[in-house]
């Protein structure tokens, strides 16, 4: 309030034209415009950050969705099968057979590039596991001539995608400059082609020396079961707890204590929830290790405060007159809450759920302690119960492990995994977002 404007202001206003804004109003409108601008700027800033992040995620992650494969005709004789199965490391033997077959095939094709079996070994990825399971799945295939699509090694894959170039490649036991000649020749003949990598979407984790075989699918399933637990437990429990505290609990030091406690739980580092989960669920309750059920329980505890805090805030925001109106016609407290207050508080509850689940979905640290981070490459669960109880990983854990692996090919996988995670997140939230729009109203 400046002196110039005081006291004289109303007098000056008196009878002034509405079509000409007086100086004070102009100043206030300036403030208004600025305020509005801040709002717009804040939003643009948020969206800008989102865009930058999205672009960098997509740019780094998109290559994970394709891979280069070699198509090879291959016959495994009965004797070879027996021989391989008698070994300790059977897969290595299959791999050798396959590489030999490919070498022969390439020799027949008459390439004018010099190569040997070692070259082939470096070009082709780890294939033994795939081949063995192919034949084990249907032993009749032994002896038949089959055509297999097998991925090339991670570095050749990188070369084809442009991540590895002849300039930055130094000869190593993983790949040499000379090998690339053969790769180029094979590409010219169409023997190597780039395909959509379904295996990435459906597969499970692989050993660190086999980036080509790594897939996010199994951990998507793990995350799915975990989020199911989180959603089914944290939303009802969170809402129920909030309703009790906000609508029913007497106001005393004890409920104050609960209130403070809940907010405080939100500030507990997530890894501490992991410590708790390990102690309570695994060591005390003997639930299985590395299981999505336990992960879900731990994340539920972590998500609860978020949901409770937002639910309470939105319950508080419902005007008391609504409650009075309901009580006045003879509704019980419970009825007034469930019929009137809760629907009006729904947008905030759903927001809490969206944010809480988003946080839970992306959380790694607590999973570290209950054994879901690391190498958990299990088959898909056989059923719903196994889905909860069988060891599995989760998307963020998978991404985290990939990101720390030495082979740069895994780096790309990690970003690809992040894309999958974000798609999962959006899919998970879409229902809540639509519901929230439905419930929004002004009164």
């Amino acid at each position, binding site marked *: 309030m400046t002196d110039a404007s005081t006291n004289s202001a109303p007098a000056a206003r008196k009878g002034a034209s509405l079509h000409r804004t007086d100086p004070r109003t102009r100043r*206030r*409108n300036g*403030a*208004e415009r600025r*305020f*509005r601008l801040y*709002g717009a700027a*804040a*939003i643009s800033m*948020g*969206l800008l*950050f*989102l865009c930058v*992040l999205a672009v960098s*995620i997509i740019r780094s992650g998109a290559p994970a969705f394709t891979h280069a494969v070699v198509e090879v005709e291959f016959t495994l004789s009965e004797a070879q099968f027996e021989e391989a199965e008698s070994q300790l490391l059977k897969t290595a033997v299959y791999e050798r057979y396959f590489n030999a077959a490919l070498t022969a095939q390439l020799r027949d094709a008459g390439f004018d590039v010099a190569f040997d079996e070692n070259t082939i070994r470096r070009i082709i990825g780890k294939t033994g596991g795939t081949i063995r399971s192919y034949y084990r799945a249907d032993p009749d295939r032994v002896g038949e001539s089959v055509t297999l699509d097998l991925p090339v090694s991670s570095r050749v894959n990188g070369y084809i995608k442009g991540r590895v170039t002849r300039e930055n490649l130094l000869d190593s036991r993983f790949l040499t400059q000379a090998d690339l000649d053969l790769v180029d020749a094979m590409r010219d003949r169409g023997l190597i082609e780039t395909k959509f990598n379904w295996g990435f979407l459906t597969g499970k984790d692989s050993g660190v020396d086999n980036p080509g075989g790594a897939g996010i699918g199994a951990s998507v399933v793990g995350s799915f079961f975990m989020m199911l637990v989180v959603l089914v437990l944290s939303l009802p*429990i969170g809402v*129920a*707890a909030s*309703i009790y505290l906000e609508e*029913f609990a007497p106001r005393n030091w004890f409920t104050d204590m*609960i209130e*403070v*406690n809940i*907010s*405080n*739980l*939100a*500030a*507990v*580092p997530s890894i*501490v929830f992991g410590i708790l989960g390990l*102690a*309570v669920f695994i060591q005390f309750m003997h639930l299985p290790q590395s299981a999505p059920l336990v992960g879900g329980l731990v994340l539920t505890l972590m998500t609860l405060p*978020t949901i409770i805090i*937002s639910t309470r*805030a*939105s319950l*508080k*925001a419902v005007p*008391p007159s609504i409650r009075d109106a309901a009580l006045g016609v003879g509704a019980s407290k419970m009825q007034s809450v469930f019929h009137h207050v809760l629907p*009006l508080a729904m*947008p*905030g509850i759903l*927001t809490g759920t*969206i*944010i809480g689940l988003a*946080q839970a979905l*992306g959380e*790694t*640290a607590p999973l570290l302690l209950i054994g879901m981070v690391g190498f958990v490459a299990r088959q898909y669960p056989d059923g719903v119960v196994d889905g909860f109880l069988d060891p599995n990983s989760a998307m*963020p854990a998978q991404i*985290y492990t990939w*990101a720390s692996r030495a082979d740069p090919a895994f780096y790309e996988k*990690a970003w690809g995994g992040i894309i999958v*995670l*974000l798609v999962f*997140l959006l899919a998970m*939230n879409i229902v809540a977002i639509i519901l929230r729009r439905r419930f929004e109203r*002004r*009164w």
Partner: protein
Amino acid sequence: MPVLWLVLIVATLALGGFFAGRRRALSDAGGDHRRLHSLPAYYGWNAALKVAVPAAGVLTVWLLAQPLVVGLVVVGDLPQDVVTEGSSMDLVMSEVRRTVSGLEGAVAAGVMSPEEARSPLLDAQRISEALREAGQIVSGQLPQPVISAAQQMRQLDNAGDWLMSGAALAAALAGLLWALRETGAAFRARNAVENGLRAVLVAAASLAVLTTLGIVLSLIFNTVEFFRIYPASEFFGSLTWSPSFGGRSELGIWPLLWGTLYISLIALIVAVPIGLFAAIYLSEYASRRVRSVVKPLLEVLAGIPTIVYGLFALLTVGPLLMEVFGNEGLGWMRSGTAVMTAGLVMGIMLIPFVSSLSDDIINAVPQSLRDGSYGLGATQSETIRKVILPAALPGIVGAILLATSRAIGETMIVVLGAGAAARLSLNPFDAMTTITAKIVSQLTGDADFSSPEALVAFALGMTLFVITLALNIVALVVVRKYREQYE
């Protein structure tokens, strides 16, 4: 009877109870539900609950107790010498249990007749054979006592299962009878059901207390252990944090605490204004269409895994800041990882925590308050600042508290963005680290797990817990003081 079946039967009974209770109440009122105390459905629910809750209780208790009881009986009958040196009864018992499930599998697969499975002549040879045939996993040679114990356990389990089914069904039926007997036109079914519901609400609220208790308990022992081997005066008094494997560590909390506060502060300085202004814009200025698109988009920021933010800090923001504040620029910054880097990036992550929830709360402020203010010739921004925000204060404080909590609990961004240096400095362009980051790193580190370097993680966790508790009490008091209850 498999548990699933039992559950299904109880569920059916509950459903039946629902209709029976309803019917009975209605018939007692002569078919005119206006003469009932409560809505007919409440009588149904009352009956359903009285069927389901006792049965579920019996079932849960039984399911928890039976393995214990059976285990005790079997253990009691086992000869002492089956537990070999270095092993434990626990392991023997898990072997017994595995054998039991193996036998079940073998019988189910038809490789072994039920009689044979019970036969005292059954030996390890035959079991391994049968199990292998049934496609079960076999490990080693089973000692004879284990096999007998397994057979005994099967029998007990079997008997127990039947008893359990009986007990659960009896409980369900008793509940049903009880409910039907009390059902009558004047019976206060709504009150009964609501009391049940209220118990559920209380239980849900107590879970938070239990969690807190659990956290305190899971931290306290190791914290005490830590203070036993490392002086508390040093922990709270020393200004240096330098753990070392040689056992000459200095583990002062202050640099970490300072880093935590500093980074959180910067994150909040970024997130709160942006988030709040975004919320205001969304709820007060933006059209419904814009709002319904932008809000979920901003929420994606909360869902991006923190490792992405960490890398973003390390690879993008850090170098960017270096260009301005680094040696080539103002010369305040020595490396890309700094409090500023981590704070900025964390702030971005926290935007939706502030914006989304605040938006909902602001939106819930009654229109009549806005009208009142506009009617006095206030501009929209004056209305927002002076009327709406104060009215929405509890929710906004809640949102900010949530963001603060998240900032304090964040690790990945700190590790990648702020560096790992524990240092007390005022320069926001210095590398620092936080309590949480150190909890994680000491917990997953390589120091001997019973050494102070590892145990300090628990003490740090406990201290942080106490500090945030104080913070929350302050917040509660502030909200109480400034809350403006509308209507």
